[in-house]
């Protein structure tokens, strides 16, 4: 995956999580300020002295020193984390307490606790993800706005409100022994799933932060995998799903940045290493009684990554998996995909019948790929005029230039077919 990786993305989340634990959730803005300040000061020094061998360690040390400064200066002015309480009040215990808070294992735990804290049930899924992006992934408000194709003010408002909810909570989420751990873990998985999807085929696929979203979702998912309580079969299945889909990112667009249909993709461009990683995790996920939707979606993605071509794909198995997915969660988009798989086996007329049988099809009215699927099947049935109409309406629904160009090419194919016929 190509990325616009930079240091702050990698490091800010760790530092913010740890400082939030020390300062307390009500002082989250202070934690963010201290991190920003520590980061910019470190960079000033590196300008002159060069980038150190271990920038991570340097930044963490710099954050710790800034935290010490703040706490010495404002020991009485601000109340800090109740869970650390008196240890932060005395000079004798302040330093050792901070040293311990900055141990690598503690930093990892804090990131995980922050992730669970962001998925507060009082927040909408969109707000949870915006908060995760800012607090754990070092996204600026501008970058969050770009990722979700919303205005700066709207993003700022969404994040601001979410932070208020977080700041009003008792403290960072306690992972061990929390009564609502299972429900919260499900919310975290869902948020990471949506974060990945937004990057993978979100409405903002032209945005440069697209692959960053996928990468961040995978990084955070691997934090879940590293924790004994959070590494459930569903978490592993979710990670496998991300690996399979991320593997296909490289072959999905052409040199001009246009979407290539699955059938036409050069499968040798798919990332073999990620496919192997996905297979490893889907095997690890095959324990326990529960088959989550992530298990099924991972299995679906694996059907594509293991097939040598679209024609040699096991479409019958794919239809069965879609049926299983629909039993867990009814969704018109899943029904749409199922209809497409059925058409691969039984032909376009059958595909059209399946599309028309979708129960909640009015929910797809604004989804360009429903009209596009109708167009595809009509075209394959040799009815270019009908196909053209469907592609026209799909085009009017396109959400970004990439989708627009894709649908324009499909329209052009209708004309070519008409001339040939």
């Amino acid at each position, binding site marked *: 995956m190509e990325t616009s990786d*930079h*240091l*702050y993305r990698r490091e*800010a989340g760790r530092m913010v999580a740890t400082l939030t634990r020390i300062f307390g959730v009500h002082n989250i803005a202070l934690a963010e300020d201290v991190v*920003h300040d520590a*980061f*910019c000061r470190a*960079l*000033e*020094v*590196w*300008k*002159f*002295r*060069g*980038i150190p061998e271990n920038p991570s360690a340097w930044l963490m040390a710099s954050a710790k020193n800034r935290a010490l400064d703040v706490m010495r200066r404002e020991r009485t002015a601000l109340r800090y984390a109740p869970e650390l309480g008196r240890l932060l009040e005395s000079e004798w215990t302040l330093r050792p307490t901070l040293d311990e808070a900055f141990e690598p294992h503690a930093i990892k735990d804090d990131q995980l606790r922050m992730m669970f804290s962001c998925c507060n049930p009082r927040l909408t899924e969109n707000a949870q993800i915006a908060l995760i992006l800012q607090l754990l992934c*070092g996204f*600026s408000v*501008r970058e969050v706005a770009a990722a979700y194709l919303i205005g700066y003010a709207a993003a700022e408002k969404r994040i601001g409100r979410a932070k208020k909810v977080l700041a009003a909570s008792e403290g960072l989420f306690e992972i061990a022994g929390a009564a609502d751990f299972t429900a919260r873990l499900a919310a975290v998985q869902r948020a990471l799933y949506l974060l990945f999807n937004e990057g993978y085929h979100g409405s903002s696929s032209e945005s440069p932060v697209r692959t960053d979203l996928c990468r961040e979702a995978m990084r955070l998912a691997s934090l879940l995998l590293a924790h004994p309580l959070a590494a459930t079969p569903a978490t592993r299945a979710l990670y496998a799903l991300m690996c399979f889909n991320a593997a296909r990112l490289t072959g999905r667009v052409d040199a001009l940045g246009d979407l290539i249909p699955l059938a036409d993709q050069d499968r040798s461009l798919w990332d073999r290493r990620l496919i192997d990683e996905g297979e490893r995790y889907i095997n690890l996920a095959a324990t326990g009684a529960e088959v989550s939707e992530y298990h099924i979606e991972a299995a679906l993605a694996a059907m594509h990554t293991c097939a040598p071509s679209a024609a040699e794909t096991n479409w019958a198995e794919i239809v069965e998996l879609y049926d299983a997915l629909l039993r867990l969660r009814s969704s018109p988009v899943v029904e749409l995909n199922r209809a497409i798989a059925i058409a691969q086996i039984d032909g376009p007329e059958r595909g059209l019948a399946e599309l028309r049988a979708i129960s909640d099809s009015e929910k797809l009215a604004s989804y360009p790929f429903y009209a596009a699927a109708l167009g595809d099947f009509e075209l394959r049935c040799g009815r270019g005029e009908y196909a053209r109409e469907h592609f026209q309406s799909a085009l009017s629904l396109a959400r970004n230039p990439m989708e627009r160009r894709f649908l324009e090419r499909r329209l052009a194919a209708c004309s070519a077919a008409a001339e040939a016929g």
Partner: protein
Amino acid sequence: MSEFLYLYRGGESRAERTPAEAEATMKLWVSWLTDLGQKGHIKDPGQPLEVTGKVVSGKAKTITDGPYAEAKDLVGGYTIVEAKDLEQAAQLSGGCPILQIGGAVEIRPVIKM
């Protein structure tokens, strides 16, 4: 070879930049100074300076907060370079990233016996 002091003045305020921009700027500085070093022009890469400080003045040794310069004149750091003459020292400063963001490099020859 003679020695020259580069004083970096002005440029954007540190608080105004996003971390990603700050990182990009930092990398430009590193590559510029590394390049000068490889060509044998760096005596001391120098240090960045805090934007605040104190000024002590007069026989009364009055201490005030300072240096009170306008942001565009504030010295943000220094480097000591070696060059053949002032012209070369000035020419070598042309690659300094601060020039891209509205800042200036002041070049002062060090007096040698």
